[in-house]
Structures are given as C-alpha cells and as structure tokens.
C-alpha cells in the first residue's frame, strides 16, 4: 500500500517540479521529491542511499537552489524565440521520455543473466577488507579507486566555484537570518548534529552510515551556523580553509600510497591495519567533505548591489 502510494506520488511530484511556473515552487517540490525518494530507498532496503538522498539530494541541494534563487532578484522574462517552439519541444520531450520509458520497461521485464554473482563475491571477501559493512567495504576497499576519484570530483566542483567567486568583487555574502528562534534552537541543535555526524561516521564500519552521510550532516550544521551570522573559526584564514578542503583527498592519497611505497599495490591497506586505515580515511573524508559541501554554499557569489555591478573577468593588463 505504502509502496503503491510512493510509486504514484513520485512521478507526480517530479512532474510538479518540471511544470511549476514559479521557480520557488519548483524548488520546494524538488525538496519534497528528494524526501520521497529517500523513503523509496528505505522501502527498497537501501538505508545508505536513503540517508545520502535525504541529506544531500533534498537537504543540501535544496539549500543551494534556494540560495541561488535568492540571487536571482529580477524574474527572468521567458525567452521569446523559444516560446514559439515550446509546443514542439514539449512533444519531442514527451516522445523521447516515452521511448526511454518503454525501453527501460523492456529491460526490466527480460530475465537477468548475471555472469558473476557480485554480492556473493563481496560476502566472500568482506573478511579481508577490514570492515564488516558491505557498502563500506565496496566504497573503501574493493572500489576505493572510484571513491578516491569521486572525492576529487567534488573538490573540482568546489575549486570551480571558488574560481568564479573570486572573479567577482569579494563582497561577503551577507545572508544572515536574525531570528531569536533560530539562535535559541541552534544552541541545542548543533551539538546534537555533531553527535549524529560522528555516530554516522563511527557506525559506517559495521552498519549503514559512513563518511558521505556524516559529512552531509556536518555541512548542514555549518550552513546553519553561517546563516545565523556566527563567525566560523578559521573563516578568515584562506590557507587553513584550503588545507581543510584538500585534506580528505590528500589523506586518502597518502594512506593509499603506504603499501605502494613498500612495493605493494596502490590503495591496498596493510593487512592487520586495514580497519584502522579505513577509519582514518573516513574521518579525514568526513571533515573535508563537510567543508567542501559547505564551501559550495559559501562560494555562491554575493548578490549584485545597485550601482555596483559585479566586476566580471580579467582585464588583460
């Protein structure tokens, strides 16, 4: 019953995101979509994905979208040349979506032909990975290469954000909410969030949880702090901030190279210490990813003030 309800609501909300006339409404729908999606993952017994979806898909992305919306002061007039093409484009999109849906349905209905049983393989080798939770074992042992590069992807996204941030005038984004309710709530919410983040990090080795989920909670904490107008420690030390941003990738690279330098393979963890190494990497990743996710929020350019158009571009000197 719940499943049926979810399966019906999800496409409707998705349509709502696409068809909403106001951007604000679309963003709110998008957040709702993320939360529903998280429920779907719970029903599919993928709590790791549910946690990540709720924290990153709905939470942080929602905050980023709302933040971006705040910078779009004047509503954009819809492009005139596109408007005449709109019915045509709509039909084209519907046809494409229908065709893709049919193909996916066909793929769903045909019998699977797995040539290897990977879950069984994972179960067979999990002992050697150093952790007890299969998802963590895949992410940080068997396919650590992918995880390492994914961390690099997030870092690149932040670096691009920072690069564009500094190509505008460096006026600090003054987006503080001064509400006594928020201040009051923060004093007991923040320690709780920190605790949840550390708990998620710690249980990652034997249950659902881990660096990405913990980092998302911690990033949300930083965003709340920033919104309440608090000074973050180390906020004005760009070098310290950057060291924090690259810390996760750096730790991952260095610890992954320990065996390499002794003639072993890259990303192989030392036999007795595999669990400890993975926990170390996860801890570094948690703090670094939290900072990275927060930096995505922080890097959004300050709204243009009247009479001070943002200076764009490098003028060749």
């Amino acid at each position, binding site marked *: 019953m719940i499943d049926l309800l979810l399966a019906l609501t999800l496409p409707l909300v998705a349509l709502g995101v696409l068809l909403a006339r106001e951007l604000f409404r679309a963003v709110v729908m998008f957040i709702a979509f993320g939360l529903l999606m998280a429920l779907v993952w719970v029903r599919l017994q993928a709590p790791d994905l549910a946690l990540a979806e709720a924290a990153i898909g709905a939470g942080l992305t929602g905050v980023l979208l709302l933040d971006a919306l705040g910078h779009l002061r004047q509503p954009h007039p819809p492009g005139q040349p596109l408007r005449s093409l709109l019915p045509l484009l709509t039909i084209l999109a519907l046809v494409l979506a229908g065709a893709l849906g049919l193909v996916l349905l066909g793929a769903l209905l045909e019998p699977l032909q797995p040539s290897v049983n*990977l879950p069984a393989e994972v179960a067979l080798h999990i002992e050697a990975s150093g952790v007890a939770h299969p998802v963590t074992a895949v992410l940080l042992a068997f396919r650590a290469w992918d995880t390492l590069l994914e961390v*690099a992807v997030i870092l*690149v996204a932040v670096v691009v954000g920072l690069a564009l941030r500094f190509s505008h005038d460096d006026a600090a984004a003054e987006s503080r909410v001064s509400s006594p309710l928020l201040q009051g709530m923060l004093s007991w919410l923040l320690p709780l969030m920190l605790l949840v983040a550390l708990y998620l990090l710690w249980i990652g080795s034997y249950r659902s949880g881990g660096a990405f989920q913990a980092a998302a909670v911690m990033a949300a904490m930083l965003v709340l702090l920033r919104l309440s107008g608090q000074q973050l420690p180390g906020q004005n030390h760009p070098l310290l901030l950057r060291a924090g941003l690259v810390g996760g990738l750096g730790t991952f690279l260095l610890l992954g190279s320990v065996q390499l330098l002794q003639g072993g393979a890259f990303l192989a963890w030392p036999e007795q210490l595999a669990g400890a190494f993975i926990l170390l990497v996860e801890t570094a990743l948690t703090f670094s990813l939290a900072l990275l996710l927060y930096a995505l929020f922080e890097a959004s350019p300050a709204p243009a003030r009247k009479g001070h158009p943002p200076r764009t571009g490098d003028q060749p000197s």
Partner: protein
Amino acid sequence: MLSWLTEGPSLLPWLVILPLLWSILSLTAGQRLQPLIATTAVGLILLATLLVLLQWLQRGDHFYSLGDWAVPLGIRLRLDGLALLLLLLTSGITSVCTLHAGRYLQEYPRAKTYFWPLLAFCWAAMNVIWLSADLFNLYVGLELLGFSAVGLVALTGEKKALAASLRYLYAALLGSLAWLLGVALIYGHQGQLDISSLALTFTDSISGQAALALMTLGLLLKMAAFPLHSWLPPAHASALPPVSALLSGLVAKAAFYILVRLWLEMAPDNLTFSAAQLLGALGAAAVFWGGWMACRQQQLKMLVAYSTVAQLGYLLLLFPLTTGTGEEATRLAWEGGWLQLTSHALAKAAMFLAAGNLVLAMGRPDLPGLHGAGRYLPFSLLGFGLAGVSLMGLPPSGGFMAKWLLLQSALLSGQWWWILVLLSGSALSAVYIFKVYQQCYVESDNPDRFRQPALVLDLSALALALLALALGILSAWPQWLISTALPGGAA
C-alpha cells in the same frame, strides 16, 4: 635497470597520483611557489610516462589491480598500445601547454590562481580514462574530466566564457547521465563492469542494446559529433589559448576513445553494418558542416574551433571502415583513424596556441584584425601554417598519412562514398586556412598596434606543429604501436 623494468612493480598508478598531488599542492601553496611546483610535477609526470613506455616495451600489454583486488570485485588499470599512445600524446601536449600557459597567464593574474589545480585535475582525469577498463570507473573519469574542463573554460570570468562554459556543463552532464544509465542497465543485467570480462559474456538483449544506445548517445554528445556539436565552438573559442589547445587537442578525444573501446572491444558483434554506416554518416556530416561553418566565421578562434568539429568527424569514419570489411582494410582504417587522432591533437593544439599568439599580438580577435600581420609575425604565422598543413592533409604531414591510410581502406573495402568525404573535407580545410592567411597579408592602414609575443609562446606552438608535421615522416613507430592494439588482431 632492465630487470627492474620487467619485474618491478608497474608504475601505472603514478600517472594519476602525480597530477592529483600536484593539484593538492598547488591549492595549498602560495602564488610564488606555483612555477616551482608545476615544473617539478610536469617533470615527474614526464619521467613516469617514459618509464611506463619502457616497461611496456619490456613486458607488453598488462593489467594493474588496484588494492590487489581481482576482477570482478576490484578495478584494474589496463595498458595496451592504444592507451600508451594516448598517454604519450597527453603528456607531450599538456606539458607544452603548461609551458605556454606559464608565460601567457602573466596577463591574467586572477585566472592564474585556479588555473594550475584545474589543469592538474584535467590531466589526472585524462590518464584515468586512458587506463580505465571498468565502465563505472569511466563514468567517474568522465565526470572529473568534464568538471575540470568546464572550470578551465570559465576561468577568465568573462561573460562570453561563462555562458559558453554553462552550455558545456549542460552537455557534459547530460552525456554523463546517459552513460550512467547505460552502465546501470549493463550492471543490472550482467552483474559486472569490467570491459574485458564483459566482452566475453556480452549477449544480445534489450538491456544490452538499450545500454549501448544510451552510452553511444552520451559519448556522441561529449565528443561534439554532428548534430550534437553546437556547444563546442563557443566553449573552445572563449577559453584561454592554452586551455583551448588542451580541450580541442585532447579532452574532446576522450569520449571517442571510450566509444571505440565500447563498440570494438566490448560489443563488436553488436555493431551492425547499418549502425556503423550511421556513425560514419554523422562523421561525414560533421566534416562538411564544420568545414562550411569554419569558412564562414569572422572570429579567428571560432574558425579554429569549428575546424575541430570537422576534424573530429573524420574519427567516426573508423566505425564503417572496420565493420564487416576485410582484414587488411580493417587494419588500414584502424591505423589511419588513430593516426588522424594523433596528428589532429598535435596540429590543433599548435593551431590554438598560434591563434592565441596572433590575437595577443594584434590586439583584436577577429579576422580583419589580422590585416598587416604578415609583416611582423612570420614566427606565429609559421606555427599556424605548419599546423594547417597537417589539418589540410598535405604531405608530408601526419594528417596526410592518416587520410592516406583511411583512403586506402575505403578503396579496399569498396566504400567509395567515404573517399568523397575525405577529399572534400581536405578541400574545405584548405579554404578556411588560406582565408586566415589571406587576411594576414592584406596591407593595414594602421600598422602601429602590433605587439611582439614572447618567444616561448611562439616556440611552444611551433614545436607542436613540427611534431604534427614529422608524424607523417616518422609514422612507422606510432603505426606499429597502434597496430598492436587492433581488436581481435594478433597483438
């Protein structure tokens, strides 16, 4: 030394570790240290590439299991002749671009801060893709490459560059998502991701067909194949010259490389005659449309960028010329196709660097701005012209050698229609390259605004152009290297 090369640990992971370390260091170090870090890093990466080459010569194709986890559980890197060719090409072109950028960026103090880390990430991503043998790992590589390339385009912060990079981002993201959906379908159906293992078990199924279609679509979008090319010219034209050189020379080729691995290595039996002809037709359309649009451009860098669209089209001819044709025709097309990629990479990188120098010297980005350049700029023009020789496919350049091989393959397999494409494509390139030259030798009424570019800027363009030219004369070794990786061939 010799025993170390044959028995010592493979150095493959260093080709990614070193650029990643470079980006980390350059993000944390101050401005003054950047040249030192960059020089050291480029030197070390070049050394690692050289050692990987020597290792390959000693032990041939080999795999490297990351973390010592065997396939299908783990991920492995794969080195064969093709991967090696692209590693060498990447190291060569990127280090010349680094040299050029070191001087050129002195004019752009703001862009400089984040240029180095993004360049290093881009380099790491390319090496990840050349070495990857795992479908999901390729997705991560494509994401890393896409984001760093978009960042490099946006770096100047100019309005035009921002708009172009946003469009580039949309195209790159859509392409990645299509690829990811395909990967999910294959993984759901077959239960594994390693390309060489999948090649053994890949069967005709709805999931498999749908996945191949989606992945191909994503890759065609990423390699700017006609008619999905319109994001490329503004992105490549509005970036800084060393960035344009890198994007046109190397980054655009990554999607093509994966496309070939996908079809000819993973699912060769699924590539039907008509599908291969369709891919070839898209390539032919790109050759004509890109060439025609290049002739019509008024901005120098837009012209060069449209020429990239045309030249990438030739690469797609590889599919019809290797599918269902004889053994000899397949071999010729295989060597010709990859030689075309190599020579275009060198020549286009050289041409973008030279075009950047011309614009810098004349102070104007449009073609009429070049009036009078012929008087002052023999060096920059020489680089541009030598690169043009290779693009037009005139002997003795690498471009000539590549088109010659493709031509022979088309003759041998009786597909005369591709010969028309090859010949008229070359004629079109001649038109737009001579158009630039003609503008340079129009006498100018205002001869005083000329600024001599630094010697290192001209030399880096010239070095790449000479390499593209020499590729035609010294094509024996690259051809042998390419032929060792012929799918289904005796390697």
